[in-house]
């Protein structure tokens, strides 16, 4: 019976680790999603501002320590593309998050069950001893 208990324990540990891993991934996904959201808002603002400008203004892009002059239209298109990219990223991240959540739920259930078994085994052991 000790062997069974030990096996249970090992299984429990393994499950727990897996669950923790899933949780980490989930949190990572969430963080990236937040970042993307911020970028999205920012780029939206930039787009708005760029729309307000006309050709008389020079538009620069900061690349490292260098301010590089950009064309207004170019800038606008670039920003637009970026915006689309960001929204796509967000969508992907969302789906990933869902998947992770589902898996983590499954893991949680398995974990709970294992815990129960483990406790039962412990009780039995206690009763025996």
């Amino acid at each position, binding site marked *: 019976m000790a062997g069974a208990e030990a096996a249970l324990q090992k299984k429990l540990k393994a499950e727990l680790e897996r669950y923790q891993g899933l949780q980490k991934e989930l949190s990572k996904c969430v963080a990236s999603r937040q970042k993307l959201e911020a*970028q999205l808002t*920012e*780029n939206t*603002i*930039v787009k*708005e*501002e*760029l729309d*307000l*400008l006309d050709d008389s*203004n*020079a*538009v*620069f*892009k*900061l*690349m490292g320590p260098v*301010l590089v002059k*950009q064309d207004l239209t170019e*800038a606008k298109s670039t*920003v637009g593309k*970026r915006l689309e990219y960001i929204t796509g990223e967000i969508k992907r991240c969302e789906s990933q998050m869902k998947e992770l959540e589902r898996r983590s739920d499954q893991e949680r259930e398995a974990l709970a069950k294992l815990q129960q078994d483990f406790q039962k085994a412990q009780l039995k052991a206690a009763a025996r001893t």
Partner: protein
Amino acid sequence: MGDPGSVQRLQDEHTKVVSDCRAKIQHWEKVRMDYSVLRDRLSTLPDRLHYSIMVPMGPLAFMPGHLIKTNEVTVLLGDNWFASLSAKQAEGIAEHRMQHVQKTIDDLGRAQGSIESRQRFTSELAGLDKERGNMEIREELTERDEQRKKGKPRVAHSPHSGSPAPPRETPAAPPGPRHQQEDAEELNRIWARLDELEREEEAMDEVYRAEDSNPADDDVVDGDIADDNAGGGGDILEDSESNQIHRHLSVTTKSSKEEWEEAALDGEGLGEDVTEWEGTPTIRFSHTTEPKKVRIDTGRNTTLKFSERREQQQQQHRRRRHSGGSNGGTTTLRSPADIYRWFVDVASGHRRPRKSILKSRSHEDGLGSDEFSYGSHGGSSSNSYSGSSNGSSSYNGSSNGSISDSIISAIIAGSGGGGGCAGDGVFHPSEEGDGDTAGDIIGNIVGMITGNNNVTSDVTSSSNNNNIDSTTANSAATNSTTNNNNNSTCESSITSRSPTTTDNSSEEVEEMSRCQLPDAFSGVVSERSARPSRGAPPSPGAPPPPSRGAPPPSPPPTATARHDDGRGGGAEAVGDGSHSGEPPAPPRRVSKFKAERLASMR
């Protein structure tokens, strides 16, 4: 707000959110302030071609310098994008951003406000509870509660289902969740049934009216059982008289009978139970409405409606059914009206119907006082019983050793009559609740004996006189008595005995009862104890059987107690054998209930 810990936590959370909001708002306010300053600066910047300023070099140094191109502003658009704009355009952008910031601030403010209000509400609620001492009342269903439920599961919903329905909770138990749908369905069924019955009732009404000249008169406390919950048909009343309600009740299916019994039996929660059960419609219990028949002057400013014909019918019916001999304590109470028949007094050998049981004595002992002024009844009833074909002959035979014996036997007989039906003495305790009724009546009797000075005085006095005439007169007197003025009435008829002797007499009676009752009661009490007294915990049931052999005051107190409680339980009321003022009150109340129960029982 039952859990202070959770409340506290909730409040903590609230506080946290509120402080968060506040911090954010502060931050954004600063930003907005910055932007507004910037805007101002931008607006004034192009005023001059160049400004001499102290230029910051690094974090720690300044250097004098000039601000030259005052109209060109490079603005960070976001995401590493810059644009060089004129001052005015920059100003526009700044304005734009400021609006954005303002919007954020507003959102945060609203969020904070809502959180704060929630917090306030929570604290108010908690405070309220503490102030007013509001407490969450929770009563867990315990085993004892389970036991306390009536012996038969009450049919909560359907009056028709023969099978026991899920037991209803007593008022003591917390109302559990009922399945709403279930309720609704059953309620609908009940309503449909009620409508049916109402129609039947009306039909019967017509019949009654056709039969008799006198209009129905209820000198009884009238309640309508919420619409004739009884099913049609059934055993009652081929004598079509009586209380339609009672007829209906008697006719009722078993389950509804149970219901009614249950409801009727419930002493304390009587009305509440019923209404609780019924939901909207009110259930009131009605006593037997007197058969609307001949008015008979019972000689004491009262008139009793009594139908000779019905009496005859019933007697024949009974004799047919219970041919010969006494039934050893079984009586047929088929309808509440039968009670009236029992409660008749024997005046000169002729059975005279009494006034409505309940009204007769204002209420001390509904069933009890007059009839159960046993002394009066004793002689008469014994006479009548011996005269009658059924019933108490057994009792008579059993006792008769002494005055006390006769009294007790009479009492028993009276009680065995299920409340003193002088005529029949056929008593079926097996009928629903009849046993209880009898037992209760007996209890009442005993209570009367032991508890009620007046009555005991009557009893003893009458017993001492052993005067049938006096008793009969007494019965006549008791017919009309209002309440425990048995004293007065009996004294009028009975000689000598003064109320002051009551103590002795009561003791005497108690003694007698103690000695005699067990034997005499045996039939009835056994019946009673055999049936699980509705709603009565098993304990009261226990005493009666042992009391049979034992002289201890258990039987009277038990029976009385049972009676007193209306259902059983607490043997305290008369158990102490004291003649406190208490017994009169409970018996009366109980007896009324008993009457109701009898009524409902049918």
